[in-house]
């Protein structure tokens, strides 16, 4: 059975136009491809430092 209070908590205020700029700037755009590229770079760096030693 639907509980009004519980259901009401699922509704959130919509973004207003004044908040759009902040929302765009604060959006985390990091994707899996970024993480992968980061990991590959770290891997290369660690491999390079081992070779130096």
């Amino acid at each position, binding site marked *: *059975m*639907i509980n*009004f209070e519980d*259901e*009401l908590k*699922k*509704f*959130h*205020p*919509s*973004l*207003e*136009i004044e*908040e*759009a700029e902040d*929302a*765009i700037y604060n*959006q985390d*755009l*990091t*994707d*899996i*491809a*970024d993480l*992968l*590229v980061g990991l*590959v770079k770290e891997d290369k760096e660690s491999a390079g430092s081992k070779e130096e030693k």
Partner: protein
Amino acid sequence: MICYNCGATLTHNDFCTNCGADVARYKKIVSTANLLYNEGLDKARVRDLSGAIESLRQCLKLDKSNVDARNLLGLVYFEIGEYVLALNEWVISKNLRPSKNIADDYISLLQDNPNKLDVYSQAVKKFNQALSYCYQGSLDLAVIQLKKVLSLNPKYVQAHQLLALLYINDEQWEDARRELNRAQKIDVGNTITLRYLAETQNILDMDDDAGYPGGGIELKGKRGASEGGRLKKDAVDSYSSPVLRKETKTATTVLNVAIGIMIGIAVAYLLILPARISAAREGVDENLKAAGEQLDAKTAQITSLEQDLKIANTQADKLKEELEVYIGENGTMTAMDSLLSAVNSYLDNPEDMQTVAEYLDQIDEATLESTSESFTTVYNLLLSKIGTDVSAGYYDSGMKAYQSEMYEDAIKDLTKAYSYDNSNGDALYNLGNAYRKSGDIVNAIDTYNKVIEEFPDTEMATRSQQYVNELNVD
């Protein structure tokens, strides 16, 4: 697909032919992102907008640079009334690909139509206000506010759902079902809509079967007992699509073959749908413009007619005034009648001066100025015929009144005596006396001055001068 390391176009190899970077995993990620984009596109086509949002967001988590997915996500957000979220996606998309990007058109469509943008903005503000009313417990106010929101933006899914929830809370099941059906028409796969709809439908079915009005504890008991029935069936129905989607997701290898075809379809879809939306909007805008122009034309016509009416009223008033001059108490027609009666009376009996004089008295001196030349000629002729005798009659009666110290009557008769015969200097002189005795100094001086002017070198003039001097000293 381009290399993440050097930006060169990748081949079928698992390494970049330009820089040698290992791109096997990267290609896998991008392929999976494309797959999710295709899923999102499929869902959007069948109006499963919630499902489309989920797939597209996952796609963008894997590959943020998938501009098509981002544009489609914006379009879906816009369709469910979340226009700020839509704008966010389009702006980011525009930054990722500044040229040849359909997001440009979407943003322009909104920016070029500030009225529409304002309506959407108002709808969002009112929705947030309604939600705030709900938290405060002012549910009636929330319902009113949500109705306003939906009149501004009928595609606002969240508003439909919240309004339905308020109706459910108030046990207005029919209204709730109506709102949920509207929400479902926009987004068929929204789980909140489906869940509320199943609950509402369940209650309405029970009402139909049992034939008793809903509400109260008894209703809640029955409702709870039947949850395993229709609710479960609807829930299964509504979740069948996601399950199927998961199955298709497992068939990645097969779908990879179809990716090329899907991309083609996707491009066609992204080009055709916005054009249709744009055409529909243009049609609505044109209709609104035409209606506005018609309204302006009608308003101008009304203003013009009002001015005409005003002019017509002014002319009518003017004509009425002119008519009054002719037929009024002192009008030309009345004067004409009086003159004809006087002439008629004189021709009948020239001796009956009194009757002729009465008729002539009815003619106002001011009216004489506006009459014709022939009228004035006849009037003056008649006056010359009877003037002296009538003047003598009025002079006698005036002097009697003067001697009896009835100065008002004396002034009246002596004025007439002088007006009928301008050579009757005694009448004018005694008129001056009557004015003086009655205390009307101004008229007395004027009359004496007239005596001095009209009858110089007479005793009357000398006396008049003395009186004038006395009165001026006083």
